[in-house]
């Protein structure tokens, strides 16, 4: 892994505070996420992982500063931000409201930031949607409404929607929820290949083993970053074991880092 110094960090946070309602959730986060890397954010429930991700995406009001590729996020125009930063939310879609949208149209929504207002999708848009749907193996359902798909299938369509943006930076909140093990492995492979292709991937993951497949791991608890380091670094493993009260132990098994319950 190379936490590159030649490019500016994809995302930087300085003194980040955020609250949900009136409850403070993030307490002064300082973080610098390298471009061209896949970083996973892990921690126990309620650590503030999703809040951090939403704040980094500019979706929550906050104190402190977020920089996107070296520029203050607040100064990046809305549409430009949407082209450079793609977002995949937690838990997919509330049942019902999107049931009548066709899979293809859902994926095409990812192209909105690239299209002029009211303009019909161009060849580039169609190509991006097709390759995104194929990469999550959802292309065969393109003419089916979302309501006819299972939870895991929906998740793959929503993932394709996020990929279709073709943004340099992808923020994903629990992208593996609802996916079966083979498709979890597919997702891990695609996150790796995105990073290998120069994109930056930041994911909040509950699956510690998937998180350890990333280039770097951010360990959070109680609204603070406890550790940020390479996933192969023993210090990262110790931080992971500590944050989960020593109830997991990280071992190297068959060339992969795995967290095994104690």
């Amino acid at each position, binding site marked *: 892994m190379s936490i590159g110094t030649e490019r500016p960090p994809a995302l930087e946070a300085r003194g980040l505070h955020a609250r949900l309602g009136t409850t403070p959730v993030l307490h002064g986060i300082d973080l610098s996420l390298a471009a061209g890397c896949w970083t996973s954010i892990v921690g126990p429930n309620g650590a503030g992982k999703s809040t951090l991700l939403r704040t980094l*995406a500019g979706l929550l009001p906050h104190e402190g500063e977020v920089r996107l590729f070296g520029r203050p996020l607040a100064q990046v125009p809305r549409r430009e931000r949407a082209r450079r930063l793609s977002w995949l939310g937690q838990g997919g879609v509330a049942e019902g409201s999107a049931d009548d949208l*066709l899979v293809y149209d859902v994926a095409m929504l990812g192209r909105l930031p690239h299209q002029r207002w009211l303009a019909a999708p161009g060849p580039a848009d169609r190509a991006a949607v097709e390759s995104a749907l194929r990469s999550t193996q959802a292309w065969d359902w393109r003419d089916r409404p979302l309501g006819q798909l299972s939870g895991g299938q929906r998740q793959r369509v929503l993932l394709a929607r996020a990929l279709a943006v073709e943004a340099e930076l992808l923020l994903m909140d629990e992208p593996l929820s609802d996916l079966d093990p083979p498709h979890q492995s597919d997702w891990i492979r695609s996150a790796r290949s995105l990073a290998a292709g120069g994109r930056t991937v930041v994911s909040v993951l509950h699956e510690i083993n998937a998180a350890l497949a990333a280039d770097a791991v951010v360990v959070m608890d109680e609204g603070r970053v406890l550790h940020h380091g390479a996933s192969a670094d023993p210090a990262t493993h110790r931080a992971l074991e500590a944050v989960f009260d020593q109830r997991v132990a990280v071992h190297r098994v068959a060339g992969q880092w795995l967290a095994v319950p104690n």
Partner: protein
Amino acid sequence: MNPRRRGPLLGLVLLLCAAVLLVLGALVGSTGFDNPFALGSNDPVGIQIVRDIRLPRTLGAWLAGALLGLAGAVAQGLFRNPLADPYLLGSASGASLGVALALWWLGAAAGSMPWLARLGITGAAFVGAVLAVLLTLLLARGVQQTLRLLLAGVIVGVVLGAIKDLITIASADILQALQGFMLGSTGLVGWPACALMAVLGALCLLLSVALAPVLDGLALGEATAASLGMPLGAMRAALVAVLALATGTAVAQTGLIAFVGLAAPHLVRSVVKTTHAGLILLSTAMGGLLLMGADLLARWLVAPQELPVGVLTAVLGGSYLLWLMHRRGARGTA
């Protein structure tokens, strides 16, 4: 069939049916069916009835239904709730209160100057509907929180309804005219009303189709919609404005027509799965066809008497929705 072709096909079918009903509507009157070939140039009264009464009324029914269908599709998308209808933000009770006030104020003058009364009632209904929506927005402190908006709409509806009831109790002589408004009627729609509804309807249609991508985005959740770079606040406000304008225009001309706005998008969705732009266009055509058909039935069923068209739409729309719900429930996909 390719699901992408079903939308345009349904649109075509809906418009063709409307064209057929327009011809039928011109022929149905208090005397039952007219023979179209008997309406020769030697019957100036007959021609005048068709030209000045039946045609504008039939077309007006289509236009008012179209406005309600459009408003229903926008409301259901905006509130992400399949039970949302055009009257959700208090416009129905606002319009009723406006009409009650106008009737009360016009009082005896209404009998002597029918066109002034008509204008006053139309204007009062429109102003009442729009003011009620503004009051709802004020109580909800903007459009950002849809749940708060829904609750404010309910509160405004109840309070304005109570005030209207107070006025009716104070002056019982307006009761019958008010009842006529609340049941809905297409009987008084003339060419000027048609022109007004056509112009405002076209404006609402253009605006809502242009804003439809935000409804698709919102269906995937607030955060996803925001991440797509759309100015959510401004677009929501514009959609609420379209909703208020379309509903207010329809209500002012035809009174409170029940169920068309709720049923039209459901009927469309039961046939075609499409984006909100397609849904809005098709719901417009569907709403128009529904009210036009209901108007025709209302005139024909008990001719030479006439049923209030709102009663008919409530009965027909309600039973169709019930059947739809039942069928979906049976398939386990409700």
